[in-house]
């Protein structure tokens, strides 16, 4: 029996998180169908049909799905859920918002943020901010799971799925979209960047946080932050890396002025190489870092910027 994957998209482009959820879903129950719900989002459905392993794309194109609000999305998913062995969504704020509603209505428990598919009904997932890994076996019946995207490789392109248009489910009409303010950046997305440079309280101000920009530009890195930096108003909430923010696992993670609270480490400790720059040599971040540089970041950051320029990074 097939798995159904909820597509992550913004009506214009299919997000990489979908490809990663497809990888997980293929391990649970192949083939995979992808549900693309949005408004004027046919291009997204076309992209989803090209993912290897995707047999069919269900396209629900209606104004009610323009923002993928949880209530109409619940109704839509329930209208197609019947035949599927598994319903899988990436553990993005969209997937986390919608999927538990579906699980509750199907009276099926949900496995959140799976790290690994051990067998089609058994999964590893992080608990206690990733300080313990739980291996759980789901009961017989449908599998409902969200997927920690940092631990699954994206499914390859090269599929040739069909696209089936499906009709909208009745909108419960109890919620409506008002507005949004999205951070705009030309840099790579935090969750899929190869290099991430994050700042913490040590940067001291929103103005100082900009010291990271020039380095990030040279390295084509995304910029992230610790909770302390977000709480202090240096940067917006979507920069936050950690237990309750975003989980990242880039090739290189540079933590600048971040002491390393367990809640922050939970979101970045799967990075391949970790570099820490901090003036406090006893900061917990150094226990995790592959390379640590102890010193005043206001001296080190300009030096780093200059040294990168010297070595030909622009």
């Amino acid at each position: 029996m097939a798995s159904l994957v909820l597509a992550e998209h913004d009506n214009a482009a299919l997000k990489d998180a979908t490809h990663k959820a497809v990888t997980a879903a293929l391990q649970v129950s192949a083939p995979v169908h992808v549900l693309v719900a949005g408004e004027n989002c046919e291009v997204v459905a076309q992209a989803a049909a090209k993912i290897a392993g995707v047999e069919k794309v269900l396209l629900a194109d209606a104004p009610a799905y323009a923002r993928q609000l949880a209530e109409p999305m619940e109704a839509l998913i329930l209208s197609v859920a019947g035949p599927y062995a598994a319903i899988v969504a990436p553990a993005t704020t969209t997937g986390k918002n919608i999927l538990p509603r579906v699980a509750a209505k199907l009276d099926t428990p949900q496995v959140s943020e799976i790290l690994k598919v051990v067998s089609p009904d058994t999964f590893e997932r992080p608990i206690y901010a990733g300080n313990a890994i739980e291996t759980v076996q789901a009961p017989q019946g449908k599998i409902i799971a969200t997927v920690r995207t940092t631990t699954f490789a994206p499914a390859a392109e090269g599929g040739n799925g069909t696209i089936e248009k499906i009709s909208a489910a009745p909108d419960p009409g109890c919620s409506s979209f008002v507005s949004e303010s999205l951070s705009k950046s030309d840099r790579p997305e935090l969750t899929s960047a190869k290099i991430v440079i994050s700042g913490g309280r040590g940067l001291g101000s929103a103005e100082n946080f900009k010291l990271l920009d020039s380095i990030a530009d040279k390295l084509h890195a995304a910029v992230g932050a610790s909770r302390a930096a977000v709480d202090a108003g240096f940067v917006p909430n979507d920069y936050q890396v950690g237990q309750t923010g975003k989980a990242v696992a880039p090739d290189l993670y540079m933590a600048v002025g971040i002491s390393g609270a367990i809640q922050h480490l939970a979101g970045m400790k799967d990075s391949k190489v970790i570099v820490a720059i901090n003036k406090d040599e006893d900061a917990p971040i150094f226990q995790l870092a592959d390379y640590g540089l102890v010193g005043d970041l206001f001296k080190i950051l300009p030096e780093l910027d200059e040294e990168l320029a010297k070595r030909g990074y622009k």
Partner: protein
Amino acid sequence: MKVLVPVKRVIDYNVKVRVKADQSGVDLANVKMSMNPFDEIAVEEAVRLKEKGKAMEVVVVSIGPQQASETIRTALAMGADRGILVKTDQTVEPLAVAKILKAVVESEQPGLVITGKQAIDDDSNQVGQMLAALLGWPQGTFAHSLEMGGDSAKVTREIDGGLQTVEVKLPAVVTTDLRLNEPRYASLPNIMKAKKKPIDEKSAADLGVDIAPRFKVLKVSEPPKRGGGVKVATVADLLDKRKTDVVI
């Protein structure tokens, strides 16, 4: 309007958890326990609604062992009016929690439920959404700010790309994110007053909910450890290191 605030007793967020040697779980013996930080934010928001005259009564509910009544007392000391303890010594999975809360909502008839977006022990992030679905209510999850209207609420949500504002008809479920507010410390007089506030005790069976676990936890293990790192002296040294070099 009445506001219902579900709160959970969890390992204090400062405690470094230890996995038991037999991999049956984490060691909870003699570990400091506290209210789930996101639930503390929920209590604060509810109490502020009451102080602004937008709520008449704040009722706190917790599901857990007898000691969870201490967590309820903490909420009462922050300004909640009364508590309900649904007493059980077993692990209650998110779906069963949502079912218990649904039963509590049906008897209490609140106009709003505010709770944490996730508990920092099982990190599931499910209960608010499940409760809303079971009740057929709308939800405003990961709330960054909350603005109450007459028969609706505007919730600004922390989403991956930034902030999104939705309007939900009441009754509704709101789950809190970190920036919604900064919870107060209870004052000594309020702690004393909280001792006199009522806590009603129930069991899941009283509410007609089956809380038998549906998942089988096969094991709980330590995450892979990272190898120890080295300190470097200068920026140039850092960039010369083989691994950094390979990456950039």
